[in-house]
């Protein structure tokens, strides 16, 4: 059981408000991802939960117990850091044991847990090496292992994959998902990478400038973004935002449409009349940069297209794929 509840949480450093009135309920066993551009406060929020930083106001509860003033060590949480933060002067084994020794656990129990975690993470072979002698991926596993041996009520992960190369990041991402399934423990995961968020999360929390913009499952966020910011942040390439005047009969101030939802109009079908400016042929799909009266429109068309810059094309769409926003950027029903 570990349910984490944040109530009206704020944190400011001097005059700078980093977190503004955060309310969030993290359910037991869930993998929740905080995502947002850099400086949005997602890491600060994680540090509040960890107890490494204290909120200026508001309340943090774990399983109904108010831990707002409880130091990090006594919250029963474990954390994986962006830089891994392995103790460079200790062997892998000592790194794993350090937290358990501090909790005054029996020696044989410590050894048992280390062996178990090492087997699970396939790091048994280098338990006696120093972190400096390991590759990035291996270090990352040790950092996760250090969290696992503690048997925490919840894991906190602060951009754990950002220091890995692209290939390793994808495979480790899958392993993390599998690990979560296996342990079933609550995980709070921070990333700036929306693809990571989409692939891992049960629920995503989108943050901007210290505020929660939207909380929801990945598909909820994709299909029904609550506002222009979330719409632009989730999904790649970024959603097109066009003046509503280009869409006859719309009451909105602005219309958003994802590049994947545009297609070449069949003869007779109406669509946006555009001029091709640039073509990126990726093989399986083609990204078209087009223009209509000064408005840039991006379209992802399937397969390979016989087009060249200067060509006139019409881009069609389905009305259900349009995202209408009002003048404040909020989604219209």
């Amino acid at each position, binding site marked *: 059981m570990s349910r984490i509840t944040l109530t009206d949480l704020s944190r400011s450093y001097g005059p700078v408000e980093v977190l503004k009135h955060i309310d969030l309920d993290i359910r037991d066993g869930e993998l929740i991802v905080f995502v947002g551009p850099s400086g949005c406060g997602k890491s600060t929020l994680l*540090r509040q939960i*960890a*107890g*490494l930083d204290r909120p200026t106001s508001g309340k943090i509860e774990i399983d109904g117990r108010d831990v707002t003033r409880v*130091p*990090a*060590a*006594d919250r029963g*949480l*474990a*954390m994986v*850091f*962006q*830089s891994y*933060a*392995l*103790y*460079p*002067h200790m062997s892998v084994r000592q790194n794993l044991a*350090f*937290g358990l020794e*501090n*909790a005054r656990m029996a020696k044989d129990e410590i050894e048992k847990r280390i062996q178990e975690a090492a087997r699970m993470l396939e790091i048994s072979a280098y338990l006696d090496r120093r972190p400096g002698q390991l590759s990035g991926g291996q270090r990352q596993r040790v950092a996760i292992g*250090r969290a696992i041996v*503690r048997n925490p009520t919840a894991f906190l992960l602060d951009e754990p994959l950002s220091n890995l190369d692209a290939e390793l990041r994808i495979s480790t991402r899958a392993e993390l998902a599998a690990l979560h399934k296996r342990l079933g423990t609550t995980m709070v995961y921070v990333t700036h990478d929306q693809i990571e968020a989409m692939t891992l999360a049960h629920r995503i929390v989108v943050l901007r400038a210290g505020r929660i913009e939207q909380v929801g499952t990945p598909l909820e966020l994709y299909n029904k973004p609550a506002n222009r910011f979330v719409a632009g942040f989730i999904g790649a390439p970024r959603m097109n935002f066009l003046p509503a005047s280009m869409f006859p009969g719309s009451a909105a101030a602005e219309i958003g449409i994802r590049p994947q939802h545009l297609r070449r109009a069949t003869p007779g079908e109406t669509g946006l009349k555009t001029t091709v400016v640039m073509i990126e042929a990726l093989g399986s799909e083609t990204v078209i940069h087009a223009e209509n009266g000064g408005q840039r429109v991006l379209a992802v068309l399937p397969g390979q297209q016989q087009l060249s810059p200067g060509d006139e094309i019409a881009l069609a769409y389905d009305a259900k794929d349009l995202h209408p926003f009002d003048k404040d950027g909020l989604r219209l029903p």
Partner: protein
Amino acid sequence: MSRATEFVFRRRGGRGWHWTDLFTWFWLVAGFVLMFGPAIWLVNSSFKTPAALAEFPPTILPYVTAEVTVEGYDKPLQLFEVTLEDGSVRVFAEVRRVGTVAQMVDPANPAEIIRVNIKDRTPVRTVSFATENYVQPFLAFDMFRYLSNSVFVTVMATIITLITNSMAAFALSKYNFRGRATVMVLIVATLMIPLSVILVPLYSVIAGMGLFNSLWGVILPTVATPTGVFMLRQYMLTIPDELIDAARMDKASEWQIYWRIILPLTAPALAVLAIFSVVWRWNDFLWPLIVLSRRELYTLQVALNTYAGETNVQWHFLLAMTVITMIPVVLVFVFLQRFITTGIAGAGLK
């Protein structure tokens, strides 16, 4: 051999001799002689007997005049090589000298006194190291006392310096607290305040605490070195804060973080500070001179100065004591020189 000549005659850029090449070699050779020469001369002189030290012109090697015990004379007599009128050379022992005439005896025939003009005799000399110069200070003077006082002051001051400075540096590098900037300004500002500016009031503080004529009075004022705090702090700033966060998540107390995470990771900087501190404290002079007035409390430096200031300087002992004082620092130089020079080049501190 060819490698040696190549080494000696290597020139700039492989082109012809430039005046700067000559100058470089002049400077290096002169530097070598000037920097090491005086110390070598000191060591060399320290093995001479008082008689050899008083001689002018001085000899390069420590010689002593050979002596022999001759029947009928209580004291050993000095041996001389004498050129007789017939041109033959004999070895005689000198009994006494009267004006330009020396009264001598043949050790083989002690009864007969031979008169020799002093111009015709030269002393028989052998190379001999007067090791008693080194032994006597320990037996006759309190050399062992001074030595152990110096060691005590150096070791204690260094240990306390390392502990207090590293703790302060930890607080100043890894905690955010009100007044941190003020403390830093205070420390940097006093980097340049020398002892000589606060001599009188510091003395009264020490005396007021009852530490006058106590080795602790020498030690305590030196341990809060701003240089040390500054140097360690700069080093600790390079330790990532996430390590401390990780340790806190690992249920480590702040004290544990200090001695299990921070101290081991600061080891290189601590080593440099330890070396500096040993050299500083071993070499300290003015402050011990003021605080210590009882002879049995003198450190080596103060003792040396006292013996050097006596009206009748016993140079043979003084030189040997100077060499002994120099030994630890020379050892540091030989083994840890690279550590220090890179430390200074890196921090620009002393």
